[in-house]
C-alpha cells in the first residue's frame, strides 16, 4: 500500500510540476489570526527568528538584537518571531513579546513544522527569505554579530525597491 502511495506521489509530482517555486506555510499569529508565506509577505523579504520562552540563548538574542530586528521591520522587512513553544509553554509567548514591545509579528510553530521546513534542528535559528520566499541566509545558534545578516538584508531591501 505504501509503495503504491509513493509511486502515485512520484507520478503526480513529476507530471504536474509546472508552477513557480517556493515554500508555502501558514502559522497562527500570537495576536490572533494567521500568517501565510507567501500570501502575507506582500512581496517583501522576511526574516524568521526561531525561538522559545524556555530557551535562554534565544531570549538573549531577542534582547540584544531587538534594535536590529525592529530596524529591519521599520524598513519594510517582515520580521517574524516564530515561537517553538509547544502547548505546555505557549501561553508564555504573548506576555514575553508584549513586555518587550517587539515590532515584528509573533507566530506559533508548536510542532516545529516550519522549523523543519527550513532545515532547523535546534534553536535559536535564523533564516532570511527573499521576496519570493527562498532562503538566502541562515544562522544556527545565538546570533551575536548581525553584520552579515544586515548586509544580506540591505541587498534584499534595496532590490525590493526601498
Amino acid at each position, binding site marked *: 500500500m505504501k509503495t503504491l502511495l509513493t509511486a502515485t506521489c*512520484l507520478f503526480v509530482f513529476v507530471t504536474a510540476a509546472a508552477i513557480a517555486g517556493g515554500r508555502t506555510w501558514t502559522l497562527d499569529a500570537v495576536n490572533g489570526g494567521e500568517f501565510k508565506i507567501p500570501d502575507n509577505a506582500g512581496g517583501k523579504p522576511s526574516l524568521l527568528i526561531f525561538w522559545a520562552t524556555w530557551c535562554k540563548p534565544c531570549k538573549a538574542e531577542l534582547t540584544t538584537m531587538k534594535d536590529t530586528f525592529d530596524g529591519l521591520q521599520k524598513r519594510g522587512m517582515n520580521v517574524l518571531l516564530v515561537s517553538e513553544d509547544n502547548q505546555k509553554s505557549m501561553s508564555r509567548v504573548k506576555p514575553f513579546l508584549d513586555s518587550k514591545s517587539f515590532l515584528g509579528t509573533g507566530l506559533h510553530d508548536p510542532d516545529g513544522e516550519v522549523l523543519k521546513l527550513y532545515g532547523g534542528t535546534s534553536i535559536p535559528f535564523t533564516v532570511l527569505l527573499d521576496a519570493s520566499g527562498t532562503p538566502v541566509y*541562515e544562522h544556527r545558534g545565538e546570533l551575536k554579530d548581525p553584520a552579515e545578516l544586515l548586509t544580506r538584508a540591505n541587498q534584499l531591501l534595496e532590490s525590493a525597491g526601498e
Partner: protein
Amino acid sequence: MNRIVLFCCAILTCAFSVYAQLEDIELDGSNQLRFDNGREVDTRRAGMEYPDNTVARRFVENRLRLELFSGNFRLGGRYLYFRPSEADIDQFRLTDVNRFDKRYFEATFDPLQLRFGHFSDLWASGLALSLFENRDLYFDSELDGVRAQVNAGSIKVIGMSGRTAQGALVPEIKTTAGRIELSPGKEHIGFSYVYHDSLLNPEMSVAGVDWNFTRGMLNLYGERVWNEIMLAGGDAAGHATFVGVVISRWGWSMLAEYADYKYGRATQIQNPSTTFRDVGPRLLQGREKHVMNVPDEVGAQVELNGSLGENTYLTGHFNANSRHSEDDETIPLPTLEEKYRPYWELYANVDHSFTGSQELFVELGSNEEAANEWQERIWGQVRAKFPFRGNQEIEFEIEQLFITNKTRDDEKYHDMLYGVSWVPNAAVSLYLSAQLTDDEELKRREGDSWFSGEAAWNISGGKHRAILFYGRERGGLKCSNGVCRQVQAFSGVRFTLETSL
C-alpha cells in the same frame, strides 16, 4: 528494502526530471551528526557504587534530511544512521538503523493541502491530539499516513489517518482524526474527534472543543475533551479541561491557567498543557522534577511578567498541582496532602541590562514535591554578563540549591553549580562548569562532582555549527517537548555537528 529502493529512485527521478523541465526548483537539505564516547551509569548495576556501576557508552546518530520544493509540491525524506549505546539497547530495546526512515509528499492547491507520509500535528492544548517526534528522547508519535486540510475562508477542516512508529516509549497506534475550526476574525473555536486503536492499550475515542478569544488586552483560551476507553468489562469514560487567561497592558502581562485532567486511565495523550514551569534552573532539572500524571491531575498557575523601563524584565510565578483528592467539589482544586502527590513552586526573577551592555539575571525560588521522594527545595541563581575588548563577552553563573528530604528523616543537602562562558568572537564560545553536591546517596550512585567544558563553533557565518563537550554530565530527568526520560550520568566526549547543505 524495495520501498527504500523505490524511494531513492523517486527522489533521484524527481530531482533530475523536474530540473530538466523547470528552473523554479529548490533542493534543500541539512545534516545532524551526534557522537558520544565515554561511560555512563548503568541501571542494571544499581547495587554497585560509582564508578563500578558504569558501562561504556558509544553512540552515533546521523540524520540527513533532503527536500525538494517546486511550486505547490514538496517531496522529502530523512536518512537515519543510528547506533545506540549498550545501556539504551537494554533499557529501551533500541536497534541499529541505517535507512530512509521518513518520507513525505505534500501538494497544496488552495484551498486543499494534501500530505502523504510522516507528519506531526497538534490541536489546541493537545488534549485531543498531540503528535511529534523527539530523537533526543527516542520518542516518536508522528503518524505515517495521510492528512488532508481544506482552508475555506474562516473555516478549516482537517482529516488524517495513519499509524505511529513503534518504539520503546511509544506503542504502535492507529489513529483516525477529524477537526473543524471556525475563525471569524482573530478568534477561533474548534471541534475535534480522535480515535486511537493501539495494539497494547485499549481503544480510545476523544471528542473535544477548544477556543481562543482576544478582545483588547484580554486573551481567553481553553479546551475541554471527553474520552471513552473501550474495555472488556465495559467502557470507561473520562474528561480533561484546560483554561487560561492572559491580560496584557502597559508592558505587563498576567497569566492564569487551570488544568483538570481525569482521563481515568493511561491514554495515548502524551503531553497536554501543564500548569507548572517545565524548564527551570539547571540544578533543579537534575533533581526529582515534577512530571504530570495525565490520567489524574489537577493544577493551577499564576504568572506576572513585565518591564520596568526598557532595561528591566520581571517575572513572578506560583503554581500548585496534585492528584485529585477525594474531597473534590464541583470544581476540583489541587491539595497539599502528601498522599495526593502535591507539587508547588514559587519563584521570582529579574533580568536587567545596564548601560554598557552588562547584563544581570537573579532568581530566587522555592518548591516542594512529593513524588518518589518528598523534597523541599530553596534555590538562588545569578548570571552576570560583561562585554569587553570590543566584541568579546564573559558570563559568570552561580546556582545554589538547598534540599530537605522528608523521605530521609529531614536529611539536608546542598547542590552547587559554578559556570563561566567566554565568547571571544561571534563564531566561537567556550563554557566551563563545575557541579558539586554533599548528598551521600547521589555520591554513591554517580559521584559528588561534575566538571565539564564545552566549545561551540559557528562555521561559515553560522551556516554550520559544531559543538564539542568533554567532562562529566550529571544524570537526571531530561524533558523536551513535554516528554521526559531519565538520562544517566555520563563522562566522556560528545560531539555534535549541524550542517546546511
